[in-house]
């Protein structure tokens, strides 16, 4: 007893000195990746700025980054329109998530309906979404609903496909194990298939959230009076290219943040998926 407690104490004293949190933070792969990205973008912007000034490119053709930046904090407020687009995107994405997961589950649990559902889904996917947008307006009016509907339509396909293949990609041996235990259809689904589908579902969500942004903006282009897409349309009509670029910048920044949030949710909800391979990938950038 006495010896073991001494051992314990000894080990604690010999342990490595704890580094300041800030140092650990700065050396974490994610932060290094972010710093690299920011630096690259900054250099790119510098070159752009230099080129615009050197060749005196007119602003309506290609605004210099400084002008875009000025527009971002200029008289036009982006907040309201940004929030509208965000709202449409999130609702469309949420609908895509719910409908996509349900459709994929139905197809996997009752394979008989796959023959009907999958061709319909594929057809829906193959229709050009820009062509549907005006029809959505006719059906759903000029409010936010047609925008949400389009964001949904554009983004739900990757969720269905990824969830369906995740649900049906259970390891052969695990399937044998389930059968050998006479697991019910319900148990097979919830205990075996659903958890093993989560990594692919999250991959689908990452693609889907970026598509949802595009869907919402396309819809604002086609008809509407608010949102970042509408703002770009207005800016173009006034030849205010700097304003259009500022909207675009905001849009892609928003998309990146949404993507990062899905990734964060993935890290928190399925930490077991952080296999070695992924760490290597993250560190190898």
């Amino acid at each position, binding site marked *: 007893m006495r010896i073991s407690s001494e051992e314990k104490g000894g080990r604690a004293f010999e342990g490595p000195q704890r580094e300041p949190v800030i140092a650990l933070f700065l050396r974490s792969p994610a932060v290094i990746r972010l710093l690299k990205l920011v630096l690259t973008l900054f250099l790119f912007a510098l070159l752009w700025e230099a080129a615009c000034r050197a060749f005196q490119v007119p602003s309506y053709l290609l605004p210099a980054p400084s002008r875009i930046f000025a527009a971002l904090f200029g008289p036009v407020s982006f907040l309201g329109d940004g929030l509208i687009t965000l709202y449409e995107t999130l609702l469309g994405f949420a609908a895509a998530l719910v409908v996509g997961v349900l459709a994929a589950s139905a197809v996997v649990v009752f394979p008989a309906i796959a023959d009907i559902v999958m061709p319909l889904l594929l057809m829906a996917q193959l229709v050009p979404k820009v062509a549907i947008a005006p029809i959505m307006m006719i059906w759903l009016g000029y409010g936010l609903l047609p925008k949400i509907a389009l964001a949904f339509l554009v983004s739900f396909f990757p969720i269905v496909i990824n969830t369906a293949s995740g649900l049906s990609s259970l390891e052969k041996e*695990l399937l044998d194990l389930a059968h*050998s235990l006479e697991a019910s259809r319900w148990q097979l689904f919830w205990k075996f298939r659903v958890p093993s589908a989560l990594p692919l579902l999250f991959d689908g969500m990452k693609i889907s959230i970026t598509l949802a942004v595009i869907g919402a903006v396309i819809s604002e282009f086609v008809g509407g009076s608010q949102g970042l897409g509408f703002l770009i349309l207005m800016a173009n009509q006034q030849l205010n290219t700097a304003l259009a670029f500022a909207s675009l910048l905001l849009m892609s920044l928003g998309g990146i943040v949404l993507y990062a949030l899905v990734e964060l949710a993935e890290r928190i909800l*399925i930490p077991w998926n952080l296999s070695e391979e992924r760490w290597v990938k993250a560190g190898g950038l």
Partner: protein
Amino acid sequence: MGSADRVAAIEARGVGMVYNRKRTSLVALEAIDLTVKKEEFVSLLGPSGCGKTTLLKLISGLLPPSAGAIMVEGAPVLGPQRKIGIVFQTPALMKWRSVEKNVMLPAEVLGLERKKSRQRAQELIDLVGLTGFERKYPHELSGGMQQRVGIARALIHDPSILLLDEPFGALDLMTRSQLNLELLRIWSERRQTSLLITHSIPEAVFLSDRVVVLSARPGRVLDILEVSLPRPRTPEMRVGRKFVELVDQVSRRIGLEYA
């Protein structure tokens, strides 16, 4: 000995298996006769693709045989049964479950009492030498440790028969011989009837009471060799003369067949 003790744990009579594919059919097993007594440890040796895994699936009731009959503890096999635990060739763990939760999975599916099965899980985790790793996830474990979890999981519902399908095939030699000893210890403590598929002749000889040699596809029983090494088996036996002779004998039997 009562009459119940004389009922064989596993009995296969004239078992054949044909896989029917779209146009072709493939004869995997032919006229297999095999008896495994209660508490016996039997190994199955045979070339790849000769139907070893198929035989295991037939015994465990995952597949119906095309011909013949299989009895487990005196009752015909009509489907999966609780009496059997299976260790697969790959660890086949759920990577979203901790070691403890992986071991408890069969108990959950079978609806066994939670408190009791948690206690049993702990006992089994101790038994396979993973004490302290209960909360770890599969990706944090080595291949050998993962396969130990697989063994503990196969034993959680207290099966009287353990079927092992090349469980150590993917492991390095040192880990493998260590796990051989562990399996031996587990078997001598619990005495579950064991049927082990392996490619390793020394492994088969060291662990088994009898070694069954199968032919190339379609699998037939070529020979059954008694292993006359005394129990309990010890690591030293693996370098003893008797052991070397037995390994030689089995190798020769196989060598002559596939020469």
